């Protein structure tokens, strides 16, 4: 099956999924990913290249090698290229996950830590998601408020199903 056929299969499945009340039960998300393997790849497709949201995200990531370079007080190394590349692949995967579940995208705050990680942060109401990317790993932590207390949970963020679950949490009410 070539890329075009896979794309068509994806859109067909997506339409059925979002127009059917029983869609969620009929096509569990991992199953759909197995059907359309090319769509969970973390490489930039031609469609991605012209997507303004991704263009903006990638351009922000591209500034990170110079993070803090001109700040007199800054004493930490910027993220290296391997870390930035991993961050690019990860955010692309998350963006696709958001599209697949039909949830709105929210732009993250993108910063670098003094440990040379790339950090993504999202806020929505009392919820916050923080993701830490190094060249070797991606870690995520959810934070939310229950009464006066903050609750936190470290969560999986390395599989397509996990990304969809994560984004459903972030973007949900």
């Amino acid at each position, binding site marked *: 099956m070539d890329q075009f056929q896979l794309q068509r299969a994806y859109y067909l499945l997506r339409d059925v999924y979002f127009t059917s009340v029983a869609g969620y039960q009929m096509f569990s998300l991992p199953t759909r990913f197995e059907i359309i393997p090319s769509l969970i790849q973390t490489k930039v497709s031609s469609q991605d290249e012209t997507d303004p949201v991704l263009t903006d995200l990638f351009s922000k990531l591209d500034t990170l090698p110079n993070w803090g370079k001109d700040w007199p007080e800054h004493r930490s190394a910027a993220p290296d290229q391997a870390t930035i590349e991993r961050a690019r692949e990860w955010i692309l995967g998350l963006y696709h996950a958001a599209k697949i579940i039909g949830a709105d995208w929210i732009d993250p705050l993108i910063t670098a*830590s003094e440990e040379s990680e790339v950090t993504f*942060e999202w806020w929505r109401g009392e919820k916050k998601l923080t993701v830490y990317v190094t060249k070797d790993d991606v870690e995520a932590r959810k*934070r939310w408020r229950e009464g006066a207390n*903050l609750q936190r949970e470290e969560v999986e963020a390395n599989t397509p199903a996990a990304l969809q679950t994560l984004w459903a949490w972030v973007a949900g009410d």
Partner: protein
Amino acid sequence: MPEDRVEDEEVLYRRVRHEYLVFIEGEWKCGENAFGDPDQQPSVDRAKLQGDSPHPTRAEPSDGIARLVATKVRAIQTVVKRRPSGVQEYPYRIDIKPDPTEQAHRGFNPAHARIYATPEEKMGSKAWRMLKDELSAMAIMELPPEKVDT
């Protein structure tokens, strides 16, 4: 001469570069790296030693100044030392110590202080991230950025 101590009720100001800030849902949010520090001892200024004004803490118009209260910082209990297995060894105690010092943007700064954890040792990534997360969660924007050059 009595030993200088940061009192519980003291207000602390943290300079935050605009790159660590985002305006969302009607308010400024501090990213947790706003509290980053290579020595794991984030700098703050003691409000009462600078006329209760956040302005001396600002180095550039694009900086935001976040406000913390010492008693809340000291109340942090979620920063813990863990073994590689995840088992908790001990909690870090979070405190603030006076640290008058020279600073590039304001010369000698008698209001300077540092937030630190005891035992004083290099914390693991998870503990350090937790401290930054706690500080950013309690930070209130006292002085928003005035002008951001893009």
